[in-house]
């Protein structure tokens, strides 16, 4: 089946433990998202299942390892691997992070923060240009969750993302949980962040659950954990976002302590209610 874009409906991250159930039950869902790097093996069951699932659902390919915010040049080998996946599965969306994860010592398997300066803006924009050129398509860049600030930063995060969009023509992936995590961690107003965000460029929304701890001063420190239900304050912020943007493809991310598929579908129904509410509002107005 071919789709031209992700529908403005809820989607789920695809997990191997749910492959068989999804193929058997064909749950009501707008799309599935996979981490690109998990499908960079040469063959075998992961590709067989993904191929079968793509017959029925639009696909969002979400990279976690390209290190777009890295000081070093982009890993061309990795970019080619992404290209092969894009050519093979023709996903309706490709997204990556405003972060870095590789340096000379190797790959760190985490999304590390980038300072916001004219120098890093130039570098990230160049990297996004390269990705879009090699993949032959527009990508979405995701706002990060961060735990520290850079003293050297001179540009606000929303302005930084907006400038990347203007320079490269890329779209944005708005992770509402990341907005909450960073806003609480850096004592900013999450609603103000959403209100300033260039929503006309948002192609997808992410939702996830956070964990909570404290920093050295004993103040709240939220961790982007992807291991629980979406927290109520993030859901409220999501409603606020959707009221502004209208319905958008919305992914529930749950990567750690992955629950049974029914629990994920409970989360999907909550998202569905928010998106349906927007549709009703639009009909009424």
């Amino acid at each position, binding site marked *: 089946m071919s789709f031209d874009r992700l529908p403005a409906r809820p989607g789920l991250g695809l997990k191997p433990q749910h492959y068989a159930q999804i193929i058997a039950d064909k749950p009501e869902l707008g799309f599935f998202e996979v981490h690109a*790097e*998990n499908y*960079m*093996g*040469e*063959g*075998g*069951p*992961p*590709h*067989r299942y993904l191929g079968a699932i793509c017959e029925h659902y639009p696909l969002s390919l979400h990279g*976690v*390892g*390209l*290190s777009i915010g*890295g*000081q*070093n040049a982009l*890993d061309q080998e*990795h970019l080619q*691997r992404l290209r092969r996946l894009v050519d093979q599965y023709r996903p309706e969306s490709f997204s990556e992070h405003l972060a*870095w*994860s*590789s*340096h*000379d*010592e*190797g*790959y*760190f*398997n*985490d999304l*590390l923060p980038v*300072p916001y300066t004219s120098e890093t803006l130039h570098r990230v924009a160049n990297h996004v240009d390269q990705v879009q050129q090699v993949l032959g398509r527009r990508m979405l860049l995701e706002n990060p969750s961060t*735990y*520290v*600030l*850079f*003293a*050297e930063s001179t540009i606000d995060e929303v302005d930084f993302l907006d400038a990347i969009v203007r320079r490269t023509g890329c779209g944005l992936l708005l992770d509402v949980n990341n907005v909450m995590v960073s806003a609480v*961690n*850096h*004592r900013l107003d999450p609603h103000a962040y959403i209100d300033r965000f260039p929503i006309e460029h948002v192609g997808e929304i992410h939702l996830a659950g956070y964990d909570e*701890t*404290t*920093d*050295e*001063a004993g103040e709240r*420190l939220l*961790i982007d954990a992807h291991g629980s239900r979406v927290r109520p304050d993030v859901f409220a912020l999501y409603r606020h976002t959707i009221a502004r943007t209208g319905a958008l493809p919305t992914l529930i991310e749950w990567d*750690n302590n992955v629950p049974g598929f029914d629990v994920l579908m409970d989360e999907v129904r909550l998202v569905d209610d928010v998106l349906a509410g927007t549709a009703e509002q639009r009909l009424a107005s």
Partner: protein
Amino acid sequence: MTSQRQFTTALIDPGRPVPQGLVSPRGTPDAKRFAVYRNNVHVSLVEAVAARFPVTRQLVGEEFFTGMARVYVGENKPQSPVMLHYGDSFPDFVAGFPPASTVPYLADVARLEAAWSDAYNAADHATLQVAELGAVPPQLLAEVILQLAPPTRFLRSRFPVGTIWSAHQARPVVIPAVKGGECVLLTRPAADVRVTVIPSADLAFLEFVQQGKSLSEAAEAVLTSFPDFDPGAALVGLAGLGAFAVSQAGASK
């Protein structure tokens, strides 16, 4: 300016202070904030190793395994964002990890698990069917050079690792009383990986086939060490398990 080199140096060495220029909203360095990154890296890499070596982990328990994996992760960072191959060197690390020496078969179980995930992710390729072998005229069969199917892996152990591994695929785990070494073959005859304990002679035969010997050369080489070896039975058995690829060379002869 905080370079990514400064960041990563502090990331992998918990003894170092927070890199200069990284601050909390109060404008001061905050070790607990930076520790989130250290923890994310460490925990996610340990989890990646645990996910690839689940039986190894069950054999020593979660606490011991996590401690061992932490040491491994500290010394071995992934060299690629494709994490499917992370842990290739873990079995050797286990073999040389002194506290694990009380479980002498642990490293070989880890080898089997590394081979399992390699077989799982290997390229798709049609496997040679027994019927296709039967279609080759007997006088030509001896000269056929077979290729192993991409997922085919095998290992030889002084311990019954195939039995130990298989016992951990069911609940409750009941390990049969077996002694002595085992040779284990991993194949992907259809959709999924299959783990089979095979005779030592069959494994030797596979090794010779892998080296590019023709079927008759491989059989003769095995017979020097295993006089009772039955090449025909071994060939049919191994082909039935999906060990061989359909190769142009084999088909055209």
